């Protein structure tokens, strides 16, 4: 079912149509990414971004979305793969159709794409681990709240965090469970840990909602002061991690780059047949109580909704 | 009511029917199956949103568009098919839709129970109002329906074949109730296919045919032949033709000895104790008894409907030991049963006549692992024609047929399996005179071809006329076995209520057991 190759002539008169397939709109991090991308794409007058397609966490859906865009002969395609392997074939189809593809955040198992932009989940986990080591100079017990166990980011962040905390042998990860990236599951599970009488000095959650969920559970047990919470994602929304760091609920979080700005630039470059880097890895910015306010201002896009 | 008409998709059930019912009279409705009696009554009870014609109640015209409304107007109805909620208690069912309430709006459980109890007493049932209906026998359920109909303050009571599931004793009870009602000035519309009943209870009779009005007679003046002529539209031969009596030395086709079945309070299953019956080839044996005597259970046990475990005893087919494993097994060995409750036990109501008729006999139409549609269709058409089923076609949905015609479809289903032993449980329930005659004729034809027939009926005349032998049951025990020469209504009834013999029997049974124990 390969699409017939086409010269990206979808957009008439030097006007370009760009499509973006998002793996799951309803994740705060990705919702933020969408907003930012729309904002940055507006800067390019000769480019229109189609309404963002949401795969709703289903690789199958995303594959057919990509295929649909190939059918529509869009001029460029941005994809945030839900899972690496499943999207590979679809991306190949796109590239066979001579449509430039920009991959965001999660890689695919083929080189047949124009550019990859993403943060490094391993680094995100590693930095979180380093912060943990800093927060627990003379060791302690740590609980880890994991995303859906089979998700690649979960696997990488977990690996990074564990590697980092090895630095201090007195730090022990005494409990870890799958909270499926969800806040209420995190609350429930942390509640169970505390009920078990687990002594936890620190909770590392692989995203901010889970960290805040843990914080809720702890505060209900009156332990929020004696524990520290580390999140990841660092979204500049009222409900997000940065604000939580500002309010002292989280000891710190890490802005996992949305890549929106770079994606917009890259796509525009590609459309005008300019050269772009095949692989761009953005670094992870730590949010601490000191820089939180600043970070929030820098990353707040709510005004552009 | 005047010029009542009603049509269903593809069927015109009623056209220009008129009916005048006077307070305090019992007005009988007569007609073949599918004549439109039930439909007419359903219109009266507000079961249909729309109909043609006009209804007047005590002079002023009324529009009957919901059962609740009709009920408030004092029109009660007992439907042909049971309309009870199996999982709810007897009391809840009787007062459903008219529950008494306390000032706080709560349902007044005690008053409900008392009210239900008195109503049950009125219809002569001794039941715990709190018992779920599921546990009641069909006959009991029929009487519960009556009690339910009585619950409101009645002006008109419509009874659609109330006696089809009742045996003689309960019928008496029912008539007593009807008489008290008419004495109170209630008008009763009474549908039945049992003419002798009508002669006893009805004052006037209106006859329908093909959904049209034929005529009204005073019951006193009318004679049977005339009525039958009116409803069938053709002269009808002898209703109970003389059977060819079988030779006493004909081989025994089916024999059940010491048939014993464990009772079951949940499904209201009567226990059987050491029942002995045998049927010779070409013989028609009747099972008589009061409700819950265990007649149905005898058939069901032989047929394997209760599974192999619940049943003990020795059954032989043509002298060969036979274990009633399952209906499937039974059918494979040439047994077939017309079950008692056609709606619950016999028909896939949502499916077509053809589907239902051929269901049990599909093995016959096997070709290369497929069902040979043509052969199936031919066989079904023949059978349907032979039984004169009134249906728009074999692709019609069975649920839309009239009660009696549904019963015929059940019969067709059994006959298509070409049984050598036929078990009939109330085979003529809700079937009109003409069709009855046909069914009797069929029974005889089968018997002459050597089929052994064991039939349950609550209509004694039918049994007397039809059977070569009559076995009488009481509380799951055989209390008498009469061949047609000695059988009379009186002897059967006495045997059916012979609790004395039952007790001695049990005593005997006990001593036997003790003997065994030694």
């Amino acid at each position, binding site marked *: 079912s390969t699409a017939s190759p086409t010269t990206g002539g979808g957009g008439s008169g030097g006007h370009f149509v760009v499509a973006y397939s998002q793996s799951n709109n*309803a994740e705060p991090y990705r919702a933020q990414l969408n907003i930012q991308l729309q904002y940055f794409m507006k800067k390019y007058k000769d480019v229109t971004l189609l309404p963002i397609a949401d795969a709703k966490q289903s690789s199958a859906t995303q594959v057919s979305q990509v295929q649909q865009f190939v059918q529509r002969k869009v001029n460029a395609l941005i994809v945030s793969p839900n899972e690496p392997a499943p999207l590979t074939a679809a991306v190949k189809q796109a590239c066979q159709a001579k449509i430039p593809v920009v991959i965001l955040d999660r890689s695919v198992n083929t080189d047949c794409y124009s550019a990859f932009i993403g943060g490094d989940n391993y680094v995100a986990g590693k930095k979180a681990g380093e912060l943990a080591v800093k927060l627990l100079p003379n060791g302690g017990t740590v609980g880890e709240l994991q995303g859906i166990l089979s998700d690649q980011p979960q696997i990488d962040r977990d690996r990074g965090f564990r590697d980092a905390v090895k630095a201090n042998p007195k730090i022990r990860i005494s409990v870890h469970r799958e909270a499926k990236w969800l806040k209420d599951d995190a609350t429930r599970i942390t509640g169970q840990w505390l009920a078990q009488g687990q002594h936890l000095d620190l909770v590392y959650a692989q995203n901010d909602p889970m960290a805040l969920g843990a914080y809720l559970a702890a505060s209900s047990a009156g332990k929020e002061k004696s524990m520290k919470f580390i999140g990841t994602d660092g979204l500049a929304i009222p409900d997000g991690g940065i604000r939580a760091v500002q309010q002292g609920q989280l000891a710190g979080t890490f802005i996992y780059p949305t890549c929106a700005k770079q994606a917009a630039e890259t796509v525009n470059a590609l459309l005008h047949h300019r050269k772009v880097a095949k692989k761009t890895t953005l670094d992870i910015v730590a949010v601490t109580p000191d820089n939180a306010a600043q970070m929030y201002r820098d990353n707040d896009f709510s005004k552009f909704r | 009511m005047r010029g009542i008409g009603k049509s269903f998709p593809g069927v015109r059930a009623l056209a220009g029917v008129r009916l005048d019912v006077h307070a305090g009279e019992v007005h009988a409705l007569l007609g073949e199956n599918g004549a439109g009696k039930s439909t007419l009554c359903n219109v009266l009870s507000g079961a249909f949103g729309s109909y043609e014609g006009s209804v007047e109640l005590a002079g002023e015209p009324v529009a009957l568009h919901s059962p609740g409304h009709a009920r408030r107007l004092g029109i009660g109805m007992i439907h042909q098919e049971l309309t009870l909620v199996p999982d709810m208690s007897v009391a809840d069912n009787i007062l459903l839709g008219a529950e008494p309430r306390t000032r706080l709006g709560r349902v007044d459980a005690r008053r409900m129970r008392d009210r239900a109890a008195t109503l049950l007493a009125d219809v002569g049932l001794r039941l715990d109002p709190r018992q779920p209906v599921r546990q009641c026998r069909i006959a009991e359920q029929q009487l519960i329906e009556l009690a339910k109909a009585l619950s409101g303050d009645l002006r008109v009571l419509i009874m659609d074949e109330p006696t089809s599931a009742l045996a003689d004793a309960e019928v008496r009870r029912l008539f007593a109730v009807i008489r008290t009602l008419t004495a109170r000035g209630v008008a009763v519309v009474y549908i039945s296919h049992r003419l002798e009943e009508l002669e006893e209870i009805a004052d006037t009779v209106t006859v329908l045919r093909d959904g049209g009005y034929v005529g009204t007679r005073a019951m006193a003046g009318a004679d049977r032949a005339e009525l039958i002529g009116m409803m069938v539209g053709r002269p009808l031969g002898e209703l109970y033709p003389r059977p060819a009596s079988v030779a006493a030395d004909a081989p025994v086709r089916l024999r059940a000895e010491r048939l014993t079945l464990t009772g079951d309070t949940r499904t209201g299953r009567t*226990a059987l104790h050491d029942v002995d019956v045998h049927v010779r080839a070409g013989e028609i044996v009747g099972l008589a008894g009061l409700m819950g005597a265990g007649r149905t259970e005898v058939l069901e046990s032989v047929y394997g409907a209760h599974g192999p475990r619940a049943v003990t005893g020795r059954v032989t087919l043509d002298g060969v030991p036979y274990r009633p494993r399952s209906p499937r097994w039974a059918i494979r060995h040439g047994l077939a049963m017309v079950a008692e409750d056609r709606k619950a036990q016999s028909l896939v109501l949502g499916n077509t006549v053809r589907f239902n008729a051929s269901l049990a006999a599909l093995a016959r139409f096997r070709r290369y692992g497929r069902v040979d549609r043509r052969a199936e269709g031919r066989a079904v058409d023949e059978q349907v024609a032979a039984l004169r089923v009134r249906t728009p076609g074999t692709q019609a949905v069975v649920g839309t047929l009239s009660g009696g015609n549904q019963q015929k479809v059940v019969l067709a289903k059994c006959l298509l399996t070409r049984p050598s032993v036929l078990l009939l449980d109330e085979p003529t329930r809700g079937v009109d005179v003409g069709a009855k005659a046909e069914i009797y004729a069929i029974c005889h034809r089968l018997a002459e071809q050597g089929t052994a027939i064991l039939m349950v009926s609550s209509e004694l005349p039918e049994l007397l006329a039809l059977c070569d032998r009559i076995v009488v049951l009481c509380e799951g025990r055989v209390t008498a076995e009469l061949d047609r020469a000695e059988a009379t209504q009186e002897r059967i009834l006495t045997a059916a209520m012979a609790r004395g013999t039952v007790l001695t029997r049990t005593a005997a049974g006990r001593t036997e057991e003790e003997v065994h124990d030694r």
Partner: protein
Amino acid sequence: MTGDATTATAEGPTRLVGWRRAVSLLGSLQGYIGLVLVLAFGIVTRGGTFLSQSNLTNAVGAFASRGILAVGETLVILTAGIDLSVGSMLGLASMVSAMLLVNQNLPPWVILPACMLCGAVMGLANGIGTTWLRIQPFVMTLATLSVFRGIDRQLSDNVSVGTQVAGADGKLTGNADSFQLFGTPGHNLFTGVVGAGVYYPVLAFVVVCVVGQLALSQTRFGRHVYAVGGNEAAARLSGVNTDRVKIAVFTLCGLLAGFAGPIDAAYSASADPLAGTSYELDAIAAAVIGGASLAGGRGSIVGTFVGALILTLLDNVLGLNAVSDNLQLIIKGCIVVVAVVLQRPDLLRGAADFVRRVARRGAPASTGRSS
């Protein structure tokens, strides 16, 4: 009954009577065996921890919103219907509550009725679709599941809305603070008055169950619900307005979903656009494990309550015992099966029958057993 009695006398009364006693005795308890087992398991493995008030509160509190959905679901199921949209309705309601708090800064006692109203409207839509349009409940609510979720996400623009709104002074606004009482962990009602206070979600869940049970068992409406589920034709011919009953249960189901919305929002201190996803399965599971029959006419709120407890406590026990997430899935499934089997009303009677049969088979009376 009589028939049965005679059987009894026919073969050793003593044994049987004994049996019937045992049966009836156990029978009373038996509906709860599943729950009993889970509790026993919990107590044996983690006695004190498990029984501690805080743990039980957490366990029940975490399930409360789904439990409330389950009550509404039970009503629908009793009429032989099913409502798959409860999760979405809850999600939308929780989003509405959060938005009313954050954008309008309304007090909780205004938000709650508002949410219930909006839930009721959604439920009404389901009811009308299933009755007037005569669409199968499954299809209708599957469709609205998607519609309501879409509205929810459109409203929120896919961004979760936090309910802990800080005022200018950086402290929570009054309304946000009192909103927490809807169930933000650690915020109880009547603290001081009653010991550690009462956790609203638990209270709400229990109250809803009690009211629901009373409504079903005590009122005319309740009877009609059972009647419609047990035999719709019969109910109609008995003068029950079946359509009205159905619309009513769907509306109530929506109303309860609306009621549960704020609880869900408060519990995670934010309304997630995906909140409530797949809650319908939990709700239905609770009802069905509690003995409700999807064919309608059979079931009770008490049963549903027990079913809900089984689900959440099972989860809690396994969690406390730090069972791996994968094993948890397997164990949960198996235990549900076991619980349902053990809880079947006719189980014991069946056993009794079996024993009786074996006994008889032993007895010589049946030497002539066929073939």
